[in-house]
C-alpha cells in the first residue's frame, strides 16, 4: 500500500514542481515583456507626441497626417492613441485630436469592437469612443443602453455624456426609467454622467422630467438640475414640491435652494410650508433652501424647527436663522430657555460654527439695551452648556477691555451658579 501511495506522491510532487517552475518562469517572462513593451511605448509616445504637435502647428491638414495610420495593436498604434488622448486634453489641439481619431482609424476600430460578445471588450470600446468624443459614434453607442447587462449600461451613459450631443442626451433620457427599473445602473452613476452634458442640457432635462411618471427618474433629473444650478428649471421644481414622493420633494427643494436666489416672496412661502413635511430630509432641504433664499417671513417656522426631532434639521434651521433673521438673537434665546437639551446644543453649536458667537461677543461693547442683554444671556447659557471656548479665547487674547470685563463677569456668574 505504501508503495502505491509513494508513487502517487511522487507523481504529485513532480507535477507540482513543474507547475511551480512554470509559474516562476511566467513571472520572470511577464516582467521582462512588460518592461520591453513600456520602453517601446514610451519611446514612441515621445517621438509622435512632438511630431504631431509640430505638424499641427505647421498647419498640416488632418489628411496630411494620415501617414500615421499604423496597423491596429502595433506598438506605434498604441503610442499614437496615447498621443491623441494627450492632444484632447490640450485646448489648442483638441479639435485636431478628435478629427485624427477618426482619420487614423481608431473610431472605426472601436466601433467594430462594440459588436464583440465579450462585455469587457465592448465596455472598453464604448469608454474609448466616449473619451474620443466621437459624435459620429453616438448611433452605435445608443443600442448598448438597451442591452440586458448591468456592466455596459453605466459605461455607455458615461461615454454618451462625454460626447455631449443632444442626440446622446435624448437617448439617455429616453431610457432613464427603464435603466432604473432594471436596476442596471446606480443613480449616482447616472447623475454624475448627466451633469457632464452641462447647462445646455437644462431644457431637455426639464422636458423629460415633466414627462416621467416614475419618481426615481424625476428625482434624478431634479438632482442634476440642482447641481447645475439652473434658474430656468425653477418652475419645474415648484411643480414637484407637492409630489407624493418625498425624494422628489427634497430634490426639488435642493434645486430651489441652489438656483432660487431671486424668487418672489410668494414662491418662498411654498418652500417654508415644507418645513412641516412629515419626512425629515424634506424638512432638512427646506431649511437649507430657506438659508440661501433669505426669507424673513420664514422665521417662525424655522424657529419651530430648532426643536425638530432630527439633529440635521435643527442644525440647518439654526444656520438658516443666522443667515436670514435680524431677530436671530431673540429666537435663539427663546430656544436656549427651553428644556430640550439636544435643541439647546444644536443652537450653541451653530452659533459657534457660523461665527455668530463673535457677533454676540461684539454686542457686549455697549452695555444696556435689548441686544446687549440678550447677547449676554445667550453667552451665559452657552458657557453653562460647555460651549464657552470662544469666551475663554477672548479672555486670553481679546482686544477690547470692556468686553473682557463683561466676559469675566459671565464666567464668574456661571461659576457661582
Amino acid at each position, binding site marked *: 500500500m505504501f508503495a502505491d501511495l509513494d508513487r502517487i506522491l511522487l507523481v504529485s510532487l513532480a507535477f507540482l514542481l513543474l507547475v511551480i517552475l512554470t509559474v516562476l518562469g511566467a513571472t520572470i517572462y*511577464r516582467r521582462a515583456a512588460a518592461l520591453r513593451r513600456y520602453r517601446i511605448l514610451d519611446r514612441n509616445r515621445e517621438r509622435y507626441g512632438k511630431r504631431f504637435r509640430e505638424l499641427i502647428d505647421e498647419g498640416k491638414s488632418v489628411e496630411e497626417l494620415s501617414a500615421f495610420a499604423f496597423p491596429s495593436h502595433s506598438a506605434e498604434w498604441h503610442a499614437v492613441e496615447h498621443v491623441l488622448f494627450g492632444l484632447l486634453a490640450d485646448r489648442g489641439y483638441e479639435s485636431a485630436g478628435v478629427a485624427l481619431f477618426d482619420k487614423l482609424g481608431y473610431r472605426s476600430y472601436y466601433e467594430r469592437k462594440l459588436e464583440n460578445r465579450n462585455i469587457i471588450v465592448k465596455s*472598453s470600446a464604448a469608454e474609448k469612443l466616449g473619451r474620443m468624443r466621437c459624435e459620429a459614434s453616438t448611433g452605435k453607442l445608443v443600442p448598448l443602453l438597451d442591452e440586458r447587462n448591468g*456592466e455596459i449600461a453605466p459605461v455607455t451613459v458615461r461615454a454618451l455624456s462625454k460626447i455631449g450631443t443632444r442626440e446622446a442626451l435624448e437617448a439617455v433620457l429616453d431610457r432613464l426609467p427603464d435603466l432604473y427599473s432594471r436596476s442596471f445602473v*446606480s443613480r449616482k452613476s447616472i447623475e454624475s454622467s448627466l451633469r457632464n452634458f452641462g447647462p445646455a442640457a437644462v431644457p431637455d432635462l426639464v422636458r423629460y422630467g415633466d414627462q416621467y411618471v416614475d419618481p426615481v427618474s424625476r428625482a434624478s433629473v431634479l438632482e442634476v438640475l440642482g447641481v447645475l444650478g439652473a434658474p430656468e428649471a425653477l418652475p419645474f421644481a415648484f411643480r414637484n414640491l407637492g409630489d407624493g414622493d418625498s425624494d422628489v420633494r427634497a430634490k426639488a427643494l435642493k434645486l430651489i435652494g441652489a438656483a432660487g436666489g431671486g424668487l418672489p416672496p410668494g414662491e418662498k412661502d411654498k418652500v417654508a410650508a415644507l418645513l412641516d413635511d412629515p419626512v425629515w430630509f424634506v424638512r432638512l432641504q427646506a431649511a437649507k433652501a430657506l438659508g440661501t433664499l433669505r426669507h424673513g417671513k420664514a422665521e417662525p417656522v424655522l424657529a419651530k424647527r430648532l426643536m425638530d426631532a432630527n439633529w440635521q434639521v435643527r442644525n440647518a434651521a439654526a444656520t438658516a436663522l443666522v443667515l436670514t433673521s435680524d431677530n436671530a438673537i431673540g429666537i435663539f434665546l427663546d430656544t436656549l430657555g427651553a428644556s430640550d437639551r*439636544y435643541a439647546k*446644543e444644536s443652537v450653541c*453649536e451653530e452659533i*459657534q460654527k457660523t461665527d455668530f458667537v463673535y457677533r454676540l461677543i461684539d454686542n457686549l461693547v455697549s452695555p444696556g439695551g435689548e441686544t446687549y442683554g440678550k447677547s449676554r444671556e445667550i453667552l451665559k447659557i452657552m458657557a453653562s452648556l460647555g460651549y464657552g471656548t470662544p469666551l475663554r479665547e477672548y479672555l486670553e487674547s481679546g482686544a477690547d477691555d470692556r468686553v473682557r470685563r463683561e466676559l469675566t463677569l459671565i464666567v464668574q456668574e456661571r461659576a457661582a451658579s
Partner: protein
Amino acid sequence: MRAFAVSLVIGFNYFILFYYGFVNLIYTALLLVSTVVILRYIRKIRYSPFKDFITSPETPPVSILVPAYNEERVIVRTVGSTLAVNYPFFEVVVINDGSTDATLDTLIRTFHLRKVDRAYRNVLKTTPIRGFYYSPDVPNLLVVDKENSGKADSLNCGINVSRSPYFCTVDADSVLEDNALIKLMTPTVESPVPVVACGGVIRALNGIHMEDGAVRRIDLPRSSLAMFQIVEYLRAFLFGRVGLDAMNGILILSGAFSLFRKESVVEAGGYRPKNVTEDMELITRLHRRAIEGKAPYAIKFISDPVCWTEVPESLKMLGRQRRRWHLGLMQSIVQNRSALFNPRYGKFGWVVLPYYLFIELLSPVVELIGYVAVVLSYLFGLLSVEFMLLFFALAVLYGIFLSTASVFLEEVTYRRYPRWSHLFRLLFYGVIENFGYRQINSFWRCQAFLKYLVGMRKWEYVEKGKNVPRGARRS
C-alpha cells in the same frame, strides 16, 4: 491499549490525508477563481470612472476615522496622507484614545488646532469625550480627545462624530495612496445593490520611502520577517479575499482600510468593544443583519486601492498580532454559531462560515496534531520514512506553489514592486517562508486556540515596525 492507540493513529492519519486534500482543493479553487476575477478586474479598471468621481459633486462625502493610541511617532504622517487623498468631500476625524504619549500635543502643534465645543450625540455608547480640536486652516480635520477604552470604542466615537453617510477606517500607522479612497468608493457608488462595506488592500509600509505624507518610492525592507509578511499579504489579498468576494462571502476586511455605510453600521449597533478583532465581528454581523432583513446587499473587497501599513518586525509582536487575529476569528464564529449550517442564512451559513471554521480556524490545529500523529505513526511502525518525507515535501511544495502564484498574480496585475531585485526577493521569500515561518504561524494560531479555551481573550498590544520608515525619519 496499543491496538487502540494504533487504530486511533491510523484513523487520524486518514483524516489528515483527506483534510489536507480537501483544504488544498479549496485553496486551488480560490486561486483559480481569483485569477479569473482579478484579470477581469484589471481590464475593467481601464474604463473605471474613478477619475470622473474625483471632481463629481455626486460623490458621497466620507469621514475618514483614525483611531490613535500612543502614535506620536507616526500620527502626523498618517493624518497628512489622509488629508492628501484625491476625493471631493471628506473630513478626517482623529480619535485620540486617551494616549499617554504626546499624540494629542503633536497634532495640536502641527495643525494649529484649538479647542472647540461640539454637540456630541452618544448614539453608539462610548466613554466620555475630553475635548474637540479644530483649526480653520484645516477645516476638514477634527481631533476628538477621549478617555482610553480601546479601538472599537474609539471607532464608535468617530461614527458618532462623523457627519457623512459613509466612513472609512484607517489605522494610525497607515498611509493611504492618494487615489485609494476614490477607488474604494467608485464600485460602491456604481453598484445597483447597496454596498454596506468595502475593503481595500493592505501592503507593508516597511521599507517604503515617503515624502510629505505620501509614498514616493517603493522598496522592500531588509527584515526577513517583514518580507515574509509581504508575501503573505499578497497571498491573502490577491487570491484569498478576491476568491471569497466573488461569492459575496467576505468576512474579513482589514480595519486598517475599510469603507462602511454609516446607516447600516449604526443600525447594527456599531463596533463591539469586547471582541479582539472588532472589524471582523462587525462584518459578520452586517452579513447576518442583511440576510435576516432579506434586503439585497453586498460586502465588497477591491484588490486595487492600497493602504500601506507597518507590519511587526519582531517575532514577539508578530506572535501577538497573529494570536489576536485568530482569537478574533474564533470569537466571531462562536458568536455566530447559530448561523452555521442554518438554511435561513443560505450560502453564508452553508459555505462562508463553514469555510472560515474548517479551513481558516481549524487548519493550524489539525496541522499541529498532524505533526504529532506523524511522529507517533513512525514510532508505531505505521509509516515509512520515505512516505513521511514525500508527504512533507508535497505540503511544502504546495505552499511554495501558492506563494509563487501570488507573486505571479501581483506581476500580471499591479506590479507595485518595480525592480528586478524586488521580484527575485519576493519569489525567494515565497519559497523559504514554507520552511519555518509557516509553521511558527500555525503555532501562534494554536496558542490562540488554547488561550480561547482557557478564557484568555484580551487584546494584546502590538508595536509595529522596528524602524521608522525612511521618509518619516526626515519629517
